[in-house]
């Protein structure tokens, strides 16, 4: 079992490697094709042509493209993601500092989406064709049709400006509160660990609107998947047997139906999570959330290629690792599933 597991792991990683390599190459080409001249920007106001050339040499931009690519790959191998021209900080440091913010937001949104969509999907599955089913379908489809940037703005307008329920959309924590001492880098968890409930509540309030905005967008596929899976399971033989044996409706639904229906939903969760990590650029922009998405967006618009490259690479790696983990978990949980090489 151990040997075959390792073999599986290495086979999967080998299969993912070309994809990652492709990402590195494509990203490099795209970034070099961006308009604008980082050397001119970096040289600053009123720089002469000579000064700009000096900066160009210093940044290594005067070398040919293949040479630059070789340098880039070599740096990558050392874990050096380059330096951001706009913030002047090393990209790796920036990413590490900002990643927890994006993860906290995405995970919260995912939890929220699951908390709403899964019960809704189950509900719809137990009453197929009824108005409840239709309502769930319409509502979740409406959620996925909303442009996230628009939803975010509307929510800010209603809940902050008109109603005053939410705090100003200014990031993870109002600066009048101390940042909780760093344990996990997730402010919510850190605040709880430090037993600082004031800060915990403040963080939660800041997280509410952006998490809702993101959650709305992914509820549809989750609800749909849950419903489909539940329907499939509820129609199977063993459920019919359970019902015929006189087990209560509740036991049939939850103990037997739900558990078995959750497997494909878990797979979907993984895909949705990695999709959200990439799609959160707009939400982070609207809510001034200091995550890697907003940083990548600003950098792209400033033709600051290093952070964008770093962002894409990290996302791609996370995506591959995540899918790998889910495949393995799936295989471990469900022995019936044979994972093909």
């Amino acid at each position, binding site marked *: 079992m151990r040997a075959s597991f390792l073999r599986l792991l290495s086979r999967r990683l080998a299969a993912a490697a*070309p994809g990652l390599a492709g990402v590195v190459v494509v990203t490099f080409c795209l970034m070099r*094709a961006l308009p604008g001249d980082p050397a001119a920007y970096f040289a600053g106001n009123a720089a002469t042509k000579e000064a700009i050339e000096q900066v160009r040499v210093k940044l290594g931009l005067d070398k040919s493209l293949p040479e630059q690519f070789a340098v880039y790959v070599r740096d990558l191998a050392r874990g050096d993601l380059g330096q951001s021209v706009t913030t002047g900080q090393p990209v790796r440091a920036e990413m590490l500092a900002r990643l927890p913010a994006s993860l906290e937001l995405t995970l919260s949104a995912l939890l929220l989406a699951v908390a709403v969509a899964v019960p809704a999907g189950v509900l719809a599955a137990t009453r197929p064709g009824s108005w409840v089913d239709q309502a769930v379908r319409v509502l979740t489809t409406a959620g996925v*049709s909303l*442009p996230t940037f*628009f939803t975010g703005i509307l929510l800010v*307008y209603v809940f902050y400006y008109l109603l005053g329920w939410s705090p100003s959309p200014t990031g993870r924590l109002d600066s009048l509160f101390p940042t909780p001492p760093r344990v996990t880098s997730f402010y919510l968890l850190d605040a709880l660990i430090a037993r600082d409930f004031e800060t915990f509540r403040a963080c939660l309030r800041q997280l509410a609107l952006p998490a809702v905005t993101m959650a709305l967008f992914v509820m549809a596929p989750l609800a*749909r998947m849950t419903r489909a899976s539940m329907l499939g399971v509820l129609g199977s033989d063993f459920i019919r047997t359970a019902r015929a044996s006189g087990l209560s409706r509740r036991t049939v639904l939850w103990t037997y139906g739900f558990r078995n229906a959750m497997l494909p939903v878990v797979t979907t969760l993984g895909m949705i999570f990695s999709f959200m990590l990439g799609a959160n650029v707009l939400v982070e922009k609207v809510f001034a959330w200091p995550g890697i998405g907003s940083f990548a967006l600003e950098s792209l618009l400033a033709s600051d290629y290093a952070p*964008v490259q770093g962002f*894409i690479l990290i996302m791609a790696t996370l995506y*591959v690792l995540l899918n790998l983990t889910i495949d393995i978990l799936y295989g471990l949980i469900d022995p019936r599933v044979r994972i093909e090489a």
Partner: protein
Amino acid sequence: MTAAALRHARYVVTENPITLVAFSMLLILLLLALLGPALAPYDPLKSDTASTLKPPSARHWFGTDQLGRDMLSRVVVATRLDMAIAFSAVALSFAAGSLAGACAGVFGGWTERIVARISDTIMAFPLFVLAMGIVAALGNSVFNVILATAIINLPFYARMARAEANVRREAGFVEAARLSGNGTMRVLAVHIYPNCLPPMMVQASLNLGWAMLNAAGLAFIGLGVRPPTPEWGILVAEGASFILSGEWWIALFPGLALMLAVFCFNLMGDGLRDLIDPRRRT
């Protein structure tokens, strides 16, 4: 289509009132897209600095923007551009992706490996960021937005087509076609490929909504469509800066229009799925 198919279609559409509503909304949108400029009461590009930032009224049903342009006209005319972008992107994606996938499924070997690698590479990217990167690198134009949206949607079609082609490769009717002397290319083109299409059309209609949101998202951050061209995403971006000062109509109407169109496409997709393959109803 045979009489039975038509009856089935009518049954599906009427049995589910939502699909009917979605279908009608889609027809209205298509009508607006085709007739847009003719229906618009004002010139969407003409400024009127005497009546800037006016709320909805009898003269301007959707109000006016910062330059006094009529929002109703701008939203209606934008329909054409947004629909065109969505349809073109999905059509391009569909054609290229399905062809590549079908070839991969039928020929296997290196074709399959190459198509799979390209698909994997694209899928490994955070898709919206890839679209952003492509448009930023290639320049702000409608064509580049279409291209970028098409590229990020390729893997879905390629993957589906490959799976479908794989299944049908060994099917009876294909065997029969081969035995009667048809070359592989002809079998692929005439027998396998057309049969792969129906399930992918469902994906296509769902994709239309996603393509539209993509284009709007790109416009929101300033990539793609150039001012003063009206496009829903750009209109929302312009209106976003006015919402917190109370001029809600500039962003609301284009946002609603966008939402409605995407909503329409998604519901249509669901309806189509029921139509094409009742077994796969979800």
